[in-house]
């Protein structure tokens, strides 16, 4: 693990909403090509941490660095341009567009052509359009939603919408992907399929940071796990270490269970 170069560094990040401390002092790193999970009970500050890393929230203190670029003060779309892409717990699709059009919107970073070229329909712009359509079809095939390609994304089942969300994030060509509770609301077979997708994403050399409640899934897929509780990191290590850590067991199961 130590041989990897570091992709993301979170240094002494704190987030306070007025008097409420969401994250008190968080420091950890994510290596290139690694799958790291951020876990913790509800309200531990996991999604807040995601929002800080992707520019949706400015930290009260501390700094986040991605591949030697400080992210403080950057807007979400600028952070996306660095190749740092996230998914969302709830708002994962453009509901009124078809799945296919969703992916075309997601391919925004690949489709930037000069506006005048697009208006005049110049060959360069048309070639770019063809490439985007090709890529959108590939991504739909990759998540296995070919049959739903021309249905409005809002009409899909919850699990299918999560898949569209991941395909959308991948359309933005990430070098690091942040997945916010991707399998919540999925059934066992959907979750199993999703784990395969995550492994496939990693095999493309994409670093992954995962926030998830589904412990069996986290334990199977992660290289390393960071445990948050009340805005603080209480443990960090491989799945085996975390499984047996008394502080983690106490946070999840309560004081009595830890003693037993």
């Amino acid at each position: 693990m130590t041989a990897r170069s570091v992709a993301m560094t979170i240094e002494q990040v704190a987030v306070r909403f007025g008097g409420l401390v969401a994250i008190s002092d968080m420091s950890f790193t994510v290596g290139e090509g690694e799958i790291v999970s951020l876990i913790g009970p509800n309200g531990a500050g996991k999604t807040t941490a995601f929002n800080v890393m992707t520019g949706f929230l400015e930290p009260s203190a501390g700094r986040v660095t991605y591949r030697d670029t400080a992210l403080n003060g950057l807007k979400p779309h600028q952070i996306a341009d660095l190749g740092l892409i996230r998914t969302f717990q709830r708002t994962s699709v453009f509901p009124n567009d078809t799945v296919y059009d969703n992916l075309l919107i997601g391919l925004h970073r690949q489709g930037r052509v000069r506006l005048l070229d697009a208006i005049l329909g110049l060959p360069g712009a048309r070639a770019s359009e063809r490439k985007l359509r090709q890529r959108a079809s590939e991504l739909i095939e990759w998540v296995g939603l070919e049959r739903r390609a021309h249905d409005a994304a809002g009409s899909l089942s919850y699990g299918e919408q999560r898949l569209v969300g991941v395909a959308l994030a991948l359309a933005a060509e990430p070098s690091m992907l942040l997945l916010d509770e991707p399998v919540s609301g999925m059934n066992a077979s959907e979750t199993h399929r999703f784990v395969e997708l995550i492994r496939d994403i990693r095999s493309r050399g994409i670093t992954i940071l995962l926030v998830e409640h589904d412990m069996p899934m986290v334990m199977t897929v992660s290289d390393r796990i960071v445990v948050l509780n009340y805005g603080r990191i209480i443990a960090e290590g491989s799945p085996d270490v975390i499984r047996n850590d008394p502080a983690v067991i106490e946070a999840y199961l309560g004081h009595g269970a830890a003693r037993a």
Partner: protein
Amino acid sequence: MRIVVTILAVAALASVPLWLRDPYLLNALITTGIFIIGAMSLNLLLGFTGQLSLGHIAFFGIGAYVSALTSLGFDIGLPGGVRLVHEPWPPIVGLVFAILIAGLCGYFVGLLSFRVRGAYFVIVTISFAEVVRLVALNWVELTQGPLALTNIPSIVLPLSGFGELTLRTKLQNYYLVLVVALVAYLLIARLVHSHFGRAMRGLMENETLAVSVGIDVTKTLTLAAVISAAIAGAAGSLYAHYIRIIDPEVFAFINTVTMVIMVISGGKGSLAGPVVGGLIFGLLPVALRPIMAPEAQWIAYGGVLMAILFVLPRGIVPSLAQRLVRRRSGTAALAPVALAETAAKEQA
């Protein structure tokens, strides 16, 4: 299918002067056409980014004044005793300036308001239109104030090898407006189907998700405002050179409301919507004039608008397209909003 409908519609509109000889009706069609261009530009903002510009007539009026002043010339005193004298230039140059300067105004209004958006944009645009109206009313040396700019020259088309063609007759102006409207329509169609159009749609549907895939909100919305304002400026220029007299009343709030009604009734977010809505509300005064007093006409417009939105709540074009799709596929199972959106896109 869509292309056939478009070509048939254009052919029908192009044939109108061949069988319609009544100058009064032709005049109504020309001014309606000019307002439809304005409504199309408003639809680019309202229908495709969700931002309501309630001062849209400002860009139209600025286009009209810029074009008129470019072709009339002016002689004004500036602070410090300097005099700025402009000799008259050809009206066609005025049209170009109208587009550029209206677009520039769109840029500043967009830059000012899109950091906060929504209600703020509505307020900024209303205020902007009012400020521009007061300038036109009070800077008498430049605009003649309430006395109006008169004798604005008609547009002259330079024809290589054949000298010039002055567009003086209603017939010529009808085709001029039709051509400009067609160009504006195709421009907007290309835009909304490009990567830029997809960025606008993404922002309107789910802004958080859109920025997370790298879409720049401020840049996208400002660009939409610039293009929208530039097209409105072109419409204003056509208006000035056709009517040939411009006064500050052109900035009246009711003119913006007329464009909004055209867009909403025809169907915002649909390319053909403003054309259909514009034809109805542009020609309704002509139909009602013989039978109603002006005050009663306004009440009638309100009634017609309500009737349209009651029967076809998403506007004429999207609602009809939705029904057509539903009849063809025989399913009403999908969410109606989602279906209509797809339908609107297909017909657009």
